[in-house]
């Protein structure tokens, strides 16, 4: 197979071997070896097989130039013309805008209202404000799980301006996982408050299965962003909020949020019990102002680097 290597070196002669070019060369090499082996198996001499495999490749110049980044802007790279260049992010969004389907929006609102109502009933039932039998509570929990699952699944299956719809099985999987977790947690609540601990037997597998399903789906999740959106992101790098681009900022935000609210709450309790409750709520207001300032600073603040 040395002939393949030599012929390939010739094809890449004079091209600067950047990591990307090296990657392409290596890919072509392994494919060439496979093709040459196929020709050889049909009864051709190794050197002749290598030469034929390389000849069959076709014109490599364009793709090598593309990998090396030395291509003229309007050079043809294949069957499709290069995508439109957008002058601004706003223009790109307008050009690719996808409106949600009215039927989906209506059903989503109904499902969300129904699920929210069920969740309120469950909380009231569990806290004892509403006297509800265990069977009724379990029914509400199942309903809330069904609603949540449907909302999650059908939302993922929708095409949006920036994302392609998730394939139906994957969307259904996420919906099922969300439903299982809600039902499981609901049953745990019912089991604990009603003292009917046998319900945990139903609850635990549901939560575990839901979490496992989430983990599996998350680990195998692939790109859903649209090409234009990826293009704009790589060109301008300023699409999406700061937390999308800078996970460290998101982590800092999380920590500072906890610090602010814990401090505000401690000030509220300490102030309330020592100075009186009439003005203690001001501590929470200050906390809220601090939180909003932090949010603004984190989302729209300049780059530190």
């Amino acid at each position, binding site marked *: 197979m040395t002939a393949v290597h030599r012929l390939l070196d010739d094809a890449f002669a004079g091209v600067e071997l950047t990591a990307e070019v090296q990657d392409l060369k290596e890919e072509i090499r392994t494919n060439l070896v496979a093709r040459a082996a196929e020709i050889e198996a049909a009864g051709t001499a190794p050197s002749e097989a290598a030469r034929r495999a390389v000849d069959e490749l076709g014109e490599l110049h364009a793709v090598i130039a593309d990998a090396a980044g030395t291509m003229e802007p309007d050079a043809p790279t294949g069957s499709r013309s290069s995508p439109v260049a957008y002058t601004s992010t706003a223009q790109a969004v307008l050009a690719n805008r996808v409106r949600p389907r009215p039927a989906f929006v209506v059903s989503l609102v109904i499902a969300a209202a129904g699920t929210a109502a069920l969740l309120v009933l469950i909380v009231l039932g569990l806290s004892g404000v509403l006297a509800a039998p265990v069977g009724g509570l379990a029914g509400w929990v199942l309903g809330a799980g069904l609603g949540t699952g449907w909302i999650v699944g059908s939302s993922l299956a929708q095409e949006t301006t920036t994302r392609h719809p998730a394939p139906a099985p994957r969307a259904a999987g996420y919906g099922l996982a969300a439903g299982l977790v809600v039902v499981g947690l609901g049953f745990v609540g019912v089991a604990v408050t009603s003292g009917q601990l046998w319900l945990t037997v139903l609850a635990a597998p549901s939560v575990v299965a839901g979490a496992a399903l989430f983990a599996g789906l998350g680990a195998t999740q692939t*790109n859903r962003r649209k090409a234009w959106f990826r293009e704009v992101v790589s060109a301008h790098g300023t699409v999406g909020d700061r937390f999308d681009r800078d996970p460290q900022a998101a982590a800092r935000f999380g920590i500072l949020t906890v610090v602010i609210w814990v401090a505000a709450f401690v000030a509220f309790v300490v102030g309330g019990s020592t100075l009186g409750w009439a003005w203690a709520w001001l501590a929470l207001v200050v906390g809220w102002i601090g939180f909003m300032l932090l949010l603004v600073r984190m989302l729209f603040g300049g780059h530190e680097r």
Partner: protein
Amino acid sequence: MIHPSQRPAAEEAFSADLLRGHTDTIVLATLRRGDRYGFEIYKTIRDATGGTHEIKEATLYATYRRLAKDGLVEAYWGDESQGGRRKYYRITDAGRAVFRRNVAAWVATRDVVDTLLLTDKEPRS
């Protein structure tokens, strides 16, 4: 559909340009059943056309690069095997969505062209 044995003329009339115009969708189609490396994709296309037509490998490399850039496929280097490490391609959710859309567009276009050319009314000779 190509029937080289029954209609030898169809082989010459076969529009390679038309085939090439759908390279992206064809590659996505071969990846829908599972991850493949370049030569496997090439072979699948070649075998599907009865071995008489092919899309040049150089064209396919340009296609892989474009599909990866658009986020429709993901590339990864496989484990060591005979012939060295291979670069595999995996279709993404975005790729599946684009594939479905392109197939729908092709079916609609094909129906319109069939109607316009009256191929469905003409008796086959």
